[in-house]
C-alpha cells in the first residue's frame, strides 16, 4: 500500500487511492450492519416485551403493535427490509419508541451538537496537548514537566462520568452559579426555547466548556506524551544538531525543524481519535445532559429500538472509516516520503 512508484504524478495516485478507499467502505459497512443487527437480535425479547408486565396494556394491543412494527417476521427479513430502505431511499427505518423515522431520532437536531462538541473538544485537547508536549520536551525533567505529566495522567485516569459529576457538583452546589448561568444541558432554563441572541450564545459557551474539559482532559495525556516523546527523539537527531551548529536560534530549531517532523506520528493518531471521542461523548452527554447522537443511540439500545441502535452503530463505523481516511490523507500531505498506490 505504501510502496514507492515514481512514474505517475502523485496527486493522481492520491485520487485513485481515495476512490478505492471509499469503495472499500461499502463491503465494510455491509459487514458491520450484518454484525450489529445480528448482535441486537441476540438480546432476548423485543421492544414490546416490557409491555407484558403492564396490566393496563392488553395482549391484543401488543399483537397489533408487533404486526405494525414487523416484529413477527424472521430477523433476516427484518434486516433485508431495513437494508433495502437504506440503499434505495436512504430510509434508516422506523423508531418504535418515538414513532418516527430513525433519521429524525438519531440525527435531526443532534448531529450539529455532536459535531460542535467533538470538534471543540478535539481543538482544545490537541492545541493544549501539543503546546504542553513541546514545552515538556524542551524542558525535560523540570518541575513544570513533572507537573504537566501528573496533570495529564490525572485527566487520563479520572473517569469521564466522575469528572462530569464533580464539575456539576462544584458549579451547582459549592460555587452555586445560580439559575441565570445554569448547569447541565445546552442552555440555562430561561434561554431554553428562546431565539438566538448574544446572551444565549454566551450562555451556550458557558455550558460547553465543562463538556470540553471532561472529554478533552481524557485524551490530552496521550497527546502530551506522544508529542513529548517524538520531539525528544527528534531533538537528538543529527540534523537538529546541524541546525543548531549553523547558529539558528533555539526557538527556530525547535519549531521549524524538530516539531514539523515530530508531529507526523500524531496525525495517524488523529484518525483514531474519533472512536475515543464517541465513547467519551456518550457518558459525558448523559451526565451533562447534552442532546448528542450518542445519547439517542444509548437510549435506543436500552429500549431495544433496534433500527435506531443499528443505524447508530452504522453511523459510528462510518465516522471511524472517514476518520482513518482523513488521517491517511493528512499524513500524505505533510510527509512527502509517503506514496500511495
Amino acid at each position, binding site marked *: 500500500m505504501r510502496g514507492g512508484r515514481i512514474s505517475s504524478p502523485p496527486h493522481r495516485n492520491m485520487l485513485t487511492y481515495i476512490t478505492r478507499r471509499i469503495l472499500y467502505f461499502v463491503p465494510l459497512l455491509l459487514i458491520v450492519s450484518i454484525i450489529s443487527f445480528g448482535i441486537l437480535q441476540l*438480546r*432476548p*425479547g*423485543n421492544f414490546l*416485551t*416490557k*409491555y*407484558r*408486565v*403492564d*396490566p*393496563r*396494556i*392488553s*395482549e*391484543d*394491543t401488543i399483537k*397489533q*403493535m408487533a404486526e*405494525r412494527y414487523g416484529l413477527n417476521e424472521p430477523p433476516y427479513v427484518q434486516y433485508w427490509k431495513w437494508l433495502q430502505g437504506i440503499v434505495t431511499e436512504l430510509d434508516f427505518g422506523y423508531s418504535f*419508541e*418515538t*414513532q*418516527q*423515522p430513525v433519521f*429524525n*431520532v438519531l440525527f*435531526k*437536531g*443532534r448531529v450539529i451538537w455532536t459535531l460542535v462538541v467533538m470538534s471543540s473538544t478535539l481543538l482544545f485537547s490537541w492545541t493544549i496537548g501539543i503546546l504542553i508536549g513541546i514545552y515538556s520536551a524542551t524542558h525535560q525533567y523540570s518541575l513544570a514537566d513533572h507537573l504537566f505529566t501528573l496533570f495529564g495522567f490525572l485527566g487520563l485516569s479520572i473517569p469521564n462520568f466522575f469528572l462530569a*459529576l464533580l464539575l*456539576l*457538583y462544584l*458549579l*451547582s*452546589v459549592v460555587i*452555586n*452559579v*445560580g*439559575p441565570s448561568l*445554569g*448547569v*447541565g*444541558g*445546552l442552555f*440555562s*432554563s*430561561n434561554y*431554553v*426555547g428562546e431565539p438566538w441572541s448574544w446572551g444565549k450564545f454566551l450562555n451556550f459557551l458557558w455550558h460547553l466548556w465543562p463538556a470540553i474539559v471532561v472529554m478533552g482532559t481524557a485524551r490530552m495525556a496521550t497527546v502530551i506524551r506522544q508529542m513529548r516523546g517524538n520531539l525528544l527523539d527528534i531533538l537528538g537527531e543529527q540534523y537538529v544538531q546541524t541546525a543548531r551548529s549553523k547558529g539558528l536560534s533555539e526557538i527556530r530549531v525547535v519549531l521549524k525543524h524538530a516539531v514539523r517532523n515530530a508531529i507526523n506520528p500524531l496525525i495517524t493518531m488523529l484518525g483514531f481519535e474519533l472512536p475515543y471521542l464517541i465513547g467519551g461523548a456518550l457518558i459525558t452527554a*448523559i*451526565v*451533562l*445532559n447534552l*442532546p448528542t447522537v450518542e*445519547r*439517542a443511540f444509548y*437510549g435506543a439500545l436500552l429500549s*431495544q429500538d433496534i433500527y435506531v441502535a443499528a443505524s447508530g452503530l452504522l453511523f459510528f463505523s462510518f465516522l471511524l472509516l472517514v476518520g482513518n481516511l482523513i488521517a491517511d490523507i493528512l499524513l500524505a500531505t505533510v510527509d512527502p516520503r509517503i506514496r500511495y498506490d
Partner: protein
Amino acid sequence: MRSFSSIRIAFSLILALLLSVPLLAGELPQTPKVVDDRLNFGQNPQFGGTFVVSTTTGPEGFNPVIATSTSTIAITDLIFGRLFEVHPITLEQEPELAKSWKASEGGKVYTFYLREGLKWSDGQPLTAEDVVFTFKDLHFNPDVESDTRSQLQLKVDGEKKLPQVKKVDKYTVQFTFPKVFAPALEGLTTPILPKHVLKDQVHKLNPEVSQGNFNETWSLDTNVDEIVGCGPFTIKEFASGRYIILEKNPYSFFANEQGEQLPYLDKIKVLFVENEQASVTKFLNGGIDALSISAKNYPTLKKREPKENFRVYRAGPGFGTSHNFGFNQDVKDEDLKKLFRNVKFRRAVAYAFDEGTVVENVFNDLAQPQWGPISAANTLYHNPNLKKYSFDLDRARELLDEIGLTDEDGDGIRETSEGEDLAFTAITNAGSDRIDMANIFANDLEKIGIKMTVKGLEFNTVINRMLEGEFEVAVMSLVGSRDPHGTGTNVFGSDGGFHYWHWSAKDNPNEAEKKIDELLSKAASTVELEERQKYYDEYQRILSEQVPLLFTVQPEVLYAVWNYVGNVGETPSPYLLERRGSLFLPLAHLIYLKK
C-alpha cells in the same frame, strides 16, 4: 388642530384595539369548570410566569389514542380534556368537558351533558360530534391501535361487544353498554380529540389515506401547531430529546372561583434530563422549580433543606408499582411444586421476609410494607385490615416444621420429602432494587433452613421466563391500575395474561382462585361504590391469606419544590406524581409562581 385631534382619536382607537387583543385571547365557555376552594388552597394565587420541571423520559408522540407510555400520557393529559376525570387526590369523579352525567338502567346507559361554548385551541367549537368521533371512529375502529377499546370491550355470551355511542343533541352524548360493567367507566375518561382536524387522517372516513395511517398521526415529527387540544395547555415548541414548552390554552375551560380563566401559568417548560443526578444538581442550582426524586437522593436534598428556600416532601406510598416474589406453582420439580402449592409454606416464607430491613437498607426508610394487592394510596379500595406477616423467623420455622420439612443431616438446610436439600433460585433483573431485596430475603431464608440463590438476568429474559413459566421464584414489579379490576383480572384472575406463578390455573383453578374470579366479576357488575368496596375488601383478604404472591414494600413518592411555587406541596398529597420516570402534573392548571 382639528385634524391633529382626529389623528389622536384614530391613534387611541388603534391603541385600544391593540390593547384589547390580549383580553380577547382568553375566552372561557359559558359554563366553565370552576375549581373549588378545596383544591385551590394557595394564598392569593398570581397569574403569569414559566414553571420549569424536568423528566427522565420525553413523550413518544402526541396522539393520546394510541399512547401506551406514561411519558406520553404525562404530556397529552395537559393538552386534552376528558368527559370526566378521576381526581388524582380525592379519587372522586370530577366533571371536565361534561358538566354532568347520569347513569340509567342500573349502570348500562350513561348520558353525558357537555358544557356549552367549549372551544378547541384553534377556536372551533367542541361538541358532541367530537365525542362520538373520538369513540366511534377512533377507539372502536379496529384500524386504530387503541388500548381503550379492549378496556371497553365486554364479553357477552362469549362474544366481545363494544358499547353503542350516540349523539343525542349538540351537547349530549349517550353510551349504551351491553351489560353493567363498572370498570368500563374508566375507559370513558380517555381524552376527546377534534373531529375537524383529524377526520381526514382516518382510513375509514378518508379512503385516500392508507390503512393504519391514524396510528402515525400526531407523532413527534408533527408540526406542533397542527396539534389542536382542549386542555389547560397547548404545545408551543418541542425539541426532540431536549425539551417541550407548553403554553396556556386561550380557550381553556378551567376557571377559579373568582371566574378568572385558569391556568395561572403562562408556560411550562419540561426539560428532558435522563440522569437523575444531573437533574438534582440542576434543581439545587435553581434551574428547575420542582423535581421528583428517588429514595437515594432524598438524604442529600433533605440535608440542604434548612439552608435553602425549598422543601422536600414525602407524599406517602406510590400508587402503582409494587415489588413481589412469585413462587411458581407449576414448577417442573415435583417436590418444589408440592411445596409452592402449600399455603403453609408460602406463609412461612412470608414471615421470613424482613420488611423493616428492606425498607431501611434498600429504600432509605422511604417505603412502607404492603400486605395486599392494592396500594394504600388507593384510598377508595385499599383494605388496611389484612393478615400481616411481620418479620418473625420463629413463626416461619414453626410452620416449616408443621409441614414436615426438617433438617435431618444437620447441614443447616432442611430436606424435602425426597431427602434433597430445599434449594431454589430466584430470578430478577440485574441492577435493580429487587436484587438487593432478594439478597436480604435469601439471607433470612438461610437462617430458617432454606437455600435461595439470587440470579440477576436481563429484564426481558426475566419477563420471557415468567411468561413461559420457566422459573422457580421470580421477583418483579407490577404496575397498578386505578380501578382494581385491571390489575385484578390481568394478574390475579385465573386466566389472566400475567398470572405467571400458576399458568395451569387457566384450565384448573384452585378453590381460592375460583373465589377471586367470582369476586372480580361481581365487583365489576355493579356500579355501587360501597358494594364494590365490599367485594374488593374480600378479594384483598383472600389474597393476603393465600399469599399467591409475596407482597413486599411500596416505595414512597418523594419530591422537592422551591418555595416560590404555589399550589404544589402545601398538602401531604402528591400534586406531582412520578410514574416510571415521567413527571405527572395532574393539576398543573392550579400551579402558580409567587412573585
